[in-house]
């Protein structure tokens, strides 16, 4: 039987629907997540299936409804709140940083906050500085938030089910460019095989999306797709790149990273978040601490060069890592 193919958006919506069927404590709230089905399709079909009591369109009040998700979670519900674009976090930052993330710790482990805050990330379609950021590093920096960043439909479903079942607050970042939306640039990897039955992918397990022996590309989200495209080109040049999809930043699968570095001795990090004080620096620090003797060349990183995401196409393409630049960086790394 042919494998069933789903877009990432449908895979996420299916994961939520299956958990809502399994657990009546699960409900969804956010802006335009009902009749619209979520601006990026992550909640499509849920309203029809579960009705407005469990699929709640909210007013534009992120602090209010994310805070309400915190309160409902501490009372034993398992809310999923959607923050339409991660860029909007600022209006709800207190609830995310000071409450969602800290209540379990501040209570000495006595109060749980089992909720999922899912949000859209990423650029590449000229939405400019306030609708194109990734920002997962910012949340990974804060103790108390699990950070999940899937790249494929299969991972998206398994990680979403895991996120809903997890007793901790989980932020779930889906890139708009991996959702398989008809109105985004076509991305063949945004559609993929997804089993119908529910399944989970444990947090803290990176996935080797392509095996290789010459260099390790550490990446996540849409950049996994670009790195895989780059790896194909590199293979034609005789360079064997291993592409590791981190999948979750908190917890981070250090073992898989270190194991790969020990094998290839060269590391390239491809990250769509800002370059400084974030994921790419953290990964290099971990490699320096735990595998310094194994690297034959200084690690390289491609990330947004500490500028807001610009609007104009050539400007935006200049700052977001591209297949060409990944290929170029890999060649340079091999020449070291």
């Amino acid at each position, binding site marked *: 039987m042919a494998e069933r193919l789903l877009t990432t958006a449908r895979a996420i919506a299916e994961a939520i629907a299956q958990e809502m069927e399994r657990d009546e404590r699960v409900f969804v709230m956010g802006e335009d997540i009902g009749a619209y089905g979520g601006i990026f399709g992550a909640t499509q079909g849920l309203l029809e299936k579960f009705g407005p009591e469990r699929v709640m369109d909210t007013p534009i009040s992120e602090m209010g*409804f994310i805070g309400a998700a915190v309160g409902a979670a501490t009372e034993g519900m398992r809310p999923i709140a959607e923050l339409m674009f991660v860029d909007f976090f600022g209006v709800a930052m207190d609830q995310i940083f000071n409450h969602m993330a800290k209540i379990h710790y501040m*209570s000495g482990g*006595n109060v749980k906050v089992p909720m999922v805050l899912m949000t859209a990330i990423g650029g590449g379609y000229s939405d400019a500085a306030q609708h194109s950021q990734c920002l997962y590093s910012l949340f990974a920096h804060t103790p108390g938030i699990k950070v999940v960043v899937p790249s494929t439909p299969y991972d998206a479903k398994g990680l979403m089910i895991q996120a809903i079942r997890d007793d901790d607050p989980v932020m779930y970042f889906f890139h708009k460019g991996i959702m398989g939306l008809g109105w985004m640039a076509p991305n063949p990897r945004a559609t993929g095989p997804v089993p119908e039955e529910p399944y989970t992918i444990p947090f803290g397990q990176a996935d080797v999306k392509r095996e290789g022996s010459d260099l390790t590309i550490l990446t996540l989200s849409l950049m996994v797709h670009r790195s895989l495209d780059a790896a194909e080109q590199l293979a034609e040049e005789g360079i064997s790149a291993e592409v590791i999809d981190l999948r979750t930043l908190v917890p981070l699968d250090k073992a898989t990273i270190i194991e790969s570095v020990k094998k290839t001795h060269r590391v390239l990090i491809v990250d769509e978040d800002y370059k400084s004080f974030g994921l790419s620096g953290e990964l290099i620090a971990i490699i320096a601490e735990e595998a310094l003797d194994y690297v034959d060349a200084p690690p390289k990183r491609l990330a947004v060069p500490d500028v807001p995401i610009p609007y104009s196409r050539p400007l935006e393409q200049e700052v977001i890592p591209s297949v060409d630049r990944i290929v170029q960086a890999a060649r340079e790394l091999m020449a070291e």
Partner: protein
Amino acid sequence: MALSRETLLQLYEMMVKIRTFEERVAEIYYEGKQPVFNIAAGPVPGEMHLYSGQEAVAAGVCAHLRPDDPVTSTHRPHGHLIAKGVDLKRMMAEIFGKETGLCHGKGGHMHLFDPELHFGCGGIVGGGIPHAVGAALAIKKRGEDRVAVSFFGEGAANIGAFHESLNLAALWKLPAVFIVEDNLYAISVPKTASTAVRSNAERGAAYGIPAVQVDGQDVVAVYEAAGEAVERARRGEGPTLIEAVCYRFRGHFEGDPEHYLPEGEKERWKQRDPIVLLAKQLKDQGWLTDEEAQAIQDRMTALIAEAEAFARESAYPPPEAALTDVFVQAE
């Protein structure tokens, strides 16, 4: 409706309990902080925001609540948690930062959590208001008759969380009661310099919910308004906003120089000490003698001494415990 002697005495006892606790915490707080005040010194370090003067609000509201009714509180949480019925020993131990405390020493005086009483609080002004909305949402989804109550100051009524929360609670017709404790000052800035609205009760109309302002020094007024609001919420008729006008007798926090206060203001308010007012009412009705009042005081003093001894004798958490409880399920 006249309140029974039994109810009034319960309110009185609760108010004395809160006042005695707070005044004793103040004494303990200054241990190790004299002659030079060092906020990090002594058995109770850190900031200390005490509730003395506002007891009628916590007592009058919480008298209507059950242990399973969620309450969110503020950076000045002691009165609310005591009125909710906390184990004073575990509360005092938390204030001392001890292992036996409510949060095993990770929360402290501003971050007290008691899941058995569905109680939470925090140091961010307005931060708890949306949590009460969420708790009320959970209650409504399950079809329960519980009520979520959020206490916050008049300063918090100017922050976005207040407005978003009231809008959501009204829109979803949630079983919630919002209590504004207007103690006249947001640290040093008076209400008159913070909002053009004289009474926060006027703001209820903006959300289409009933709202009332009451004399927060008069426990009977608070009790009656809160009773109506709580019953309304339990009946599924939606949220209510209550503003109780009160006064903090000890400033914003311990060490507050209070030079921003108009001369004589605090003294005038102390003439209307809520505990003294209630004692007078009880005595006028012949429901409380001086001896009985003293006996209540002695009982409360002994109770708090017991809590203090428990806290002092308890061990500190082992330092490595700082690394646990970030997650329920750490990988």
